[in-house]
């Protein structure tokens, strides 16, 4: 079936670069193995999942190594442009449309491959402990493996069809994983909402792909990028339309305003799922799409054109940063704080892409994945071990820093990275985005970005204080080591609660802490791959060939780093820490003071609080207004139309047919035709009565009539014949 077709520039590439297609294939095969045999294996299929992810990780690492060699090779240096390694087989042909399947390896793809394989491996190891004893343990590992396979397929995609394939597989798996505990309606609702909201965005992906095919006549990503970068056609409006349509898909997938509402609800899934979903897969898919097809967006949306201070991507990214950060302040659920934080950070990535800071945005994907994954896994660790399966910071946490030192340490490091504290990884990536916004003439977004940074510091301080400091409350007060039950047991196993609680002295077990420590380390060091502050531009060097360049697009180089430029942002972050710490202590601390319950007393603050708690009423708008109107009045109206008008016509025609049949029967058939028959009887009877006298019974008379008639007949005959 698959005939080897193309092999652009593969001659010099290494084995790993040419065989990178194995990276998604291994977990995909593993998925079927887990589904088929997982239940019979001693560890319920998790060993297959982990093994497949490790194998992918090894190949991804090999690919990364060979890519580095390729970039650094003397030959490549001469030309500066490092060609991607594309390996593809013909998938199917329809006329002139050739769709292939294979791998497209460049700096961007390698970054994501490594990231996804690495994070997935750690998350799976973590999950062996976290979901132990779950009744759908095998399903969980199958889904999570397929999930990674989907992301890897998408990352590698050489064309839009494969891209959509990976994209949608992720959508499916997110549905399965978020709704993992589907016995409860809230969870299945969240799964439905996630899939459906993303699907709304996917509409844009389908349309955008169709437009790209219409403009460029191809679905190959490398060709699209090249043609878009050198775009000279007169129908630029179409390209803009394509960019907007595709960006709608990114809004859905990457949880950008106004389709971000599914992300916090997606916390209904098990914590490892949240961490995987929010760090390296799923939500970054949208950012990845923009980065991957950057020429299309850059040219289509007029990014970096002198005098343009706004574009769609930057605006959406900017709005997302602020609104999500605002929401993070009013969450009680630690995972929801992190969820909004993810939304906000995704806003940074989009903003980066929108202002031309391609490298900064992609690097932020890279660093964010480590510290956000670490934060989620910390939250999971707390719930699993420290707070008795609760995620509520206000009722079940507090004072955990001494009881869970490892978790606390990792949390603090990751928080620092997230807030952009200097020399932690987040600082290097975020700062480049902020700087670019300033230097590329997107001043407004510069302010948005630094305010967002300050808000990040503030809400993370609040969450950290509530979780680790202060007095232990609720579940945290009954500090118990995670026993052999998975999370879902607290829904179903009443026996668990009646068992005496055994107090544990240590942190979570090694399956949880080791991934945490690794991620915590990476949250610090990953930033040094590209630290402009220290003069390191290695990551930029490795990936710059993926940006795309051509006559129609010119992406400005990242600005030179100066501490002076970074200072305002850093000052605001520091301010955010201090103010938030003070406020949090005042509001949630043990000491009574005036700030406590302020939102209940002050109408304006109360209204603001309510506005935030209700998530700007966006959910209400979607669920109560849009969805409900479609699901109820509109669909009912349509159905009513169907039953009463369209079907009514058919039935009316049918009934009309029957009526006219009845009419025909009643008046024509029974009346006229049968009437004629009956009438002839009556006529005969009448005539008979009239002629009765003739019927005298007299034979002579009969004879006379007979012959008279015969004579008349003869006369007629003669007359006619003559």
């Amino acid at each position: 079936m698959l005939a080897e077709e193309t092999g652009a520039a593969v001659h010099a590439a290494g084995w790993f670069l040419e065989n990178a297609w194995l990276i998604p294939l291994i977990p995909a095969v593993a998925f079927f193995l887990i589904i088929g045999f997982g239940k019979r294996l001693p560890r319920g299929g998790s060993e297959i999942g982990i093994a497949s992810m490790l194998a992918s990780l090894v190949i991804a690492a090999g690919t990364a190594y060979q890519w580095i060699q390729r970039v650094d090779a003397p030959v490549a240096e001469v030309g500066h442009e490092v060609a991607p390694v594309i390996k593809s087989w013909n998938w199917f042909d329809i006329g002139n449309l050739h769709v292939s399947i294979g791998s497209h390896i460049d700096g961007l793809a390698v970054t994501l491959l490594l990231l996804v394989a690495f994070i997935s491996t750690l998350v799976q190891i973590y999950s062996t402990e976290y979901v132990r004893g779950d009744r759908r343990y095998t399903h969980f590992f199958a889904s999570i493996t397929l999930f990674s396979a989907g992301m890897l397929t998408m990352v590698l995609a050489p064309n839009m069809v494969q891209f959509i394939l990976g994209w949608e597989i992720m959508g499916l798996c997110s549905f399965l994983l978020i709704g993992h505990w589907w016995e409860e309606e809230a969870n299945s609702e969240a799964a439905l909402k996630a899939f459906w909201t993303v699907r709304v965005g996917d509409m844009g992906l389908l349309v955008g792909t169709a437009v790209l095919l219409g403009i460029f006549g191809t679905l190959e990503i490398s060709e699209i990028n090249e043609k878009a970068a050198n775009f000279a056609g007169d129908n630029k409006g179409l390209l803009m339309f394509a960019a907007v349509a595709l960006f709608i898909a990114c809004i859905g997938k990457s949880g950008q305003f106004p389709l971000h509402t599914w992300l916090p609800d997606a916390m209904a899934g098990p914590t490892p799922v949240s961490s995987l979903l929010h760090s390296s897969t799923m939500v970054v898919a949208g950012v990845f799409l923009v980065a991957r097809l950057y020429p299309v967006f850059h040219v289509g949306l007029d990014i970096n054109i002198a005098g343009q201070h706004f574009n769609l991507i930057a605006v959406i990214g900017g709005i997302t940063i602020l609104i999500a950060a605002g929401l993070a302040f009013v969450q009680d659920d630690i995972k929801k704080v992190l969820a909004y934080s993810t939304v906000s950070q995704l806003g940074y990535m989009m903003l980066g892409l929108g202002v031309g800071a391609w490298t900064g945005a992609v690097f932020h994907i890279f660093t964010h994945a480590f510290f956000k994954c670490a934060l989620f896994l910390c939250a999971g660790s707390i719930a699993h071990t420290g707070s008795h399966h609760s995620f509520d910071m206000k009722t079940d946490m507090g004072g955990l820093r001494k009881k869970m030192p490892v978790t606390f340490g990792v949390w603090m490091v990751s928080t620092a990275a997230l807030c952009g504290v200097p020399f932690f990884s987040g600082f290097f990536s975020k700062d480049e985005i902020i700087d670019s916004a300033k230097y590329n003439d997107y001043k407004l977004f510069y302010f948005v970005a630094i305010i967002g940074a300050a808000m990040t510091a503030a809400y993370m301080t609040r969450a950290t204080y509530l979780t680790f400091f202060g007095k232990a409350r609720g579940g945290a007060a009954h500090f118990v080591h995670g026993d052999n039950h998975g999370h879902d047991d607290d829904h179903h196993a009443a026996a668990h609660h009646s068992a005496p609680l055994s107090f544990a002295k240590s942190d979570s077990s090694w399956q949880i802490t080791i991934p945490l420590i690794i991620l915590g380390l990476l949250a610090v060091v990953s930033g040094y791959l590209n630290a402009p502050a220290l003069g390191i531009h290695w990551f930029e060097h490795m990936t710059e060939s993926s940006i795309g360049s051509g006559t129609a697009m010119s992406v400005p180089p990242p600005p030179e780093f100066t501490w002076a430029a970074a200072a305002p942002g850093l000052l605001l972050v520091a301010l955010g820490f201090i103010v938030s710490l003070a406020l949090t202590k005042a509001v949630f601390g043990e000491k009574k003071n005036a700030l406590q319950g302020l939102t209940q007393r002050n109408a304006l603050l109360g209204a603001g609080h309510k506005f935030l708690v209700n998530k700007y009423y966006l959910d209400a708008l979607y669920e109560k207004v849009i969805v409900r109107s479609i699901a109820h009045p509109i669909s009912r109206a349509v159905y009513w139309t169907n039953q009463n008008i369209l079907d009514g016509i058919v039935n009316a025609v049918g009934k009309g047919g029957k009526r006219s049949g009845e009419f025909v029967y009643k008046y024509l058939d029974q009346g006229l035709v049968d009437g004629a028959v009956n009438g002839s009887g009556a006529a005969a009877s009448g005539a008979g009565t009239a002629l009765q006298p003739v019927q005298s019974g007299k034979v002579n008379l009969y004879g006379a009539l007979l012959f008279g008639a015969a004579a008349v007949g003869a006369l007629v005959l003669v007359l006619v014949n003559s």
Partner: protein
Amino acid sequence: MLINQFLILGAVLFCIGVYGVIVRKNAVLVLMSIELILNSVNINLLAFDRLWGGQVDGNVFALYIIAVAAAEVGVGLAMVLLIFRNRKTIALDDLSEMKG
């Protein structure tokens, strides 16, 4: 032609027969008049047979008619006899019970 005379004879006989059927009240006479009609037909048949090629068709029909007429007269006279025995009359005017 010779045929004319035969046809005229047939016609005359027919008319006499019809007259007898209509006018006579005696059943026996009516039967006899019918015999006249039948024989007038016979004459016609034979005449036409002679005229067109002298085949035997006409003769055969005539023979049939004679046979049927004989049978008819036989039955008819038997009925008349029975009616006379029952009613002591054979006047047709008195036998009008079969009117509708």
